[in-house]
């Protein structure tokens, strides 16, 4: 069972991701904001991280830098409402593995998660 950390503040998106990813056989942990995610990341190791960019307390970009510094091999998927090219480019330059824009297709997301988990 793969351990996935979902960092997201939208309750509806959280529930859907949790439901879908658990259905796919993963062990899903939820962090509702950046601060909670930081705490979880200090004490646990994850096979994949799924994060929003606009988060309370600690932004998605700060989180990505933190993850890349401490566990550079953990794959990261960004799930964001932003369609701006510079934001997407910045995220990839920071080392994220995939970028999904909201509204998102849960089936597509599930496939991308599976692909990254197999790859790693």
């Amino acid at each position: 069972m793969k351990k996935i950390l979902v960092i997201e503040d939208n309750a509806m998106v959280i529930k859907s991701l949790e439901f879908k990813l658990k259905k796919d056989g993963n062990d899903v942990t939820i962090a509702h904001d950046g601060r909670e995610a930081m705490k979880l990341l200090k004490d646990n190791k994850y096979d994949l991280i799924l994060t929003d960019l606009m988060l309370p307390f600690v932004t998605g970009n700060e989180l990505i830098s933190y993850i890349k510094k401490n566990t550079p091999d953990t794959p990261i998927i960004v799930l964001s409402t932003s369609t701006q090219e510079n934001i997407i480019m910045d995220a990839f330059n920071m080392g994220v593995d995939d970028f999904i824009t909201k509204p998102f297709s849960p089936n597509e997301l599930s496939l991308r998660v599976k692909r990254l988990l197999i790859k790693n």
Partner: protein
Amino acid sequence: MFNFENFNFYLFLDSTPWIMKLNIFIALFFISLALIFFISIIWIRIFKIYRNEKKRKQQGLLIDFLNSYLFDEDFNKELEIKNFKENHLKTPLEIKVTIKEILHFHENLKGESARDLEVLFRNLGLVEFTLMDLDDGRWFTTARAINALSELSIEVPNDRIEAYLNESRNEVRQQSQLYFLKLAKEQPLKFLDKTVRPLTTWQQIYIENALKNFYKGPAPDFSQWLDHELTSVVEFSIRMIARYNQFENIPKLIPFLKSKNDTLKCEAINSLTNLEDTGLLELLIPDFSENSRIIKLQILEAVKQLGSYEDLKRVGAQLAPIDWELRIKYHNIEQGFLPEKKELIYSQFMLEKRFEI
């Protein structure tokens, strides 16, 4: 000590002076008023807590129901929908929360899941409730109903929505415009023919956004609304001609350069500048001084983007010596044409700063 047994209220009233009676009456009136007010606040609070609790319960139920419906292959859709409809769609509050939650899900999901939600909305019989809301008469219910229909791509006969295109409430008009835009296969702005109320700035922004992000058909020919009765519609069309690079419509924009309406004239100059119409400056510069300040500023902007230093000097010759706003703009543009002059001014500034002149 006061003896209650021998107290006679009527006797007491008879023996009390009228000013005391008035005082007692006023005191009693205000005490009862305060009591009614206090009880009402408590009652409203209790009602709100009860309502919120029911709302939370329904939301929790819906999150599980919708997730299972969308992602659980073992979920018996037909049976579960029937059960949900019979047991959890009985009160107006339950219906309202369900519509809102489905819309919330739909807003965040796309692809197959979004289409499944549209089917679910129909199967739960929520279209009928939405249509009832549409005729409710309260503007916010009507606006919400139109929003639900457009978000979930539910088509209803055009005349049902057209009736709201000229509503007094801005929000209702905006939602009906978005309905036509989001559901149109072609001619997304056909509703403008039936619009008699001016488009607000926000409506223009929303229409443009919906045209770019939701409408998938061919771009309409915006010149068909250049002779519309509403200035705001004409203004919007002129702007869209440039946004959609409809170069073939340049000749139709030229007459607006002679318009008496500054808004239209300004928009036409802006659009023709963006379309890089080479003949524009020759039409504008000779009559520069006859224009209002706003048009003069727009002409200067056009010279900056399309013209040469010679064109700018021709405009400069027509500027009044004390017209500071225009002169400042003129000199700012001049710096762009003469980079060495800009460098000279900067060197002079640095020199003065260094020696504290």
